[in-house]
């Protein structure tokens, strides 16, 4: 639903299984630049959302994957994202019958210094 989609390919987001977690990574390109010298906030938001979908998809590895629809997302921007690789991963806080709550984090060279975090609610259509 996220990695491999036309949008993910457009911004250059790909799965990164270096740690076994459902991490997504985007390499720097002029095409994702927002204010000069920094990744666009929308790319970071989009990446955090896709990380939530990836984490949720992983939770359903042993059962049918419901249709997932975004309800809302709240992104906190913590540091400017400079022209290097950007990574994001999410963990699922709760899966209810109809709604899932996910928490995502985005970082660059140092995972202990996040550049953005997000909370997301996703509607499960099953």
């Amino acid at each position, binding site marked *: *639903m*996220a990695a491999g*989609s*036309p*949008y*993910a*390919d*457009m*911004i250059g987001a790909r799965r990164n299984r270096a740690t076994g977690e459902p991490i997504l990574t985007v390499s720097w390109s*002029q*095409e*994702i*630049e*927002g*204010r*000069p010298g*920094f*990744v*666009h*906030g*929308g*790319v970071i*938001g*989009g*990446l955090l*959302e*896709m990380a939530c979908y990836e984490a949720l998809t992983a939770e359903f590895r042993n059962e049918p994957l419901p249709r997932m*629809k*975004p*309800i*809302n*997302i*709240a*992104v*906190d*921007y913590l540091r*400017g994202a400079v022209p290097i690789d950007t990574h994001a991963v999410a963990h699922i806080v709760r899966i209810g019958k109809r709604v899932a709550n996910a928490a995502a984090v985005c970082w660059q060279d140092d995972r202990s210094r996040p550049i953005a975090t997000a909370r997301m609610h996703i509607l499960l259509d099953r």
Partner: protein
Amino acid sequence: MADFFNIAGVERMVSGHTSQIGLRYVDHGDDWVELAFDYQPKLAINDSGVLASGPVISLIDSACGLSIVARRKVLRPMATLDLRVDYVRAAPPGKAIVARATCYRIARSVSFVRCLAHDGNADDPVAHALATFFFTGD
């Protein structure tokens, strides 16, 4: 459009990623800006062509930032502090998405913005957002 883009530096805010998603200027007023992008298959989140929300976040983030410029009439370097988006309803594939962002308060370091996005009828929005920005110092 001309008077708005005469504000020094604004043209640099509509390059890079914003041109990747085909963002275009629609209109602006004293404290608001409208931007839009047309539907393109490359903006989909799946093979059925459903629009990804990433481009919608980009559209809203850009419109919100520019609404501060519209209100202040001067471009000061700024960064998004937080952005919350409610996806009020699904946007069927094929339609352009328009976002109108209104900056309702500029304080010394932080500005407050709200934004509605729709796909043709402003009374039937697809997304509603609130954002804050801070001036990164000049």
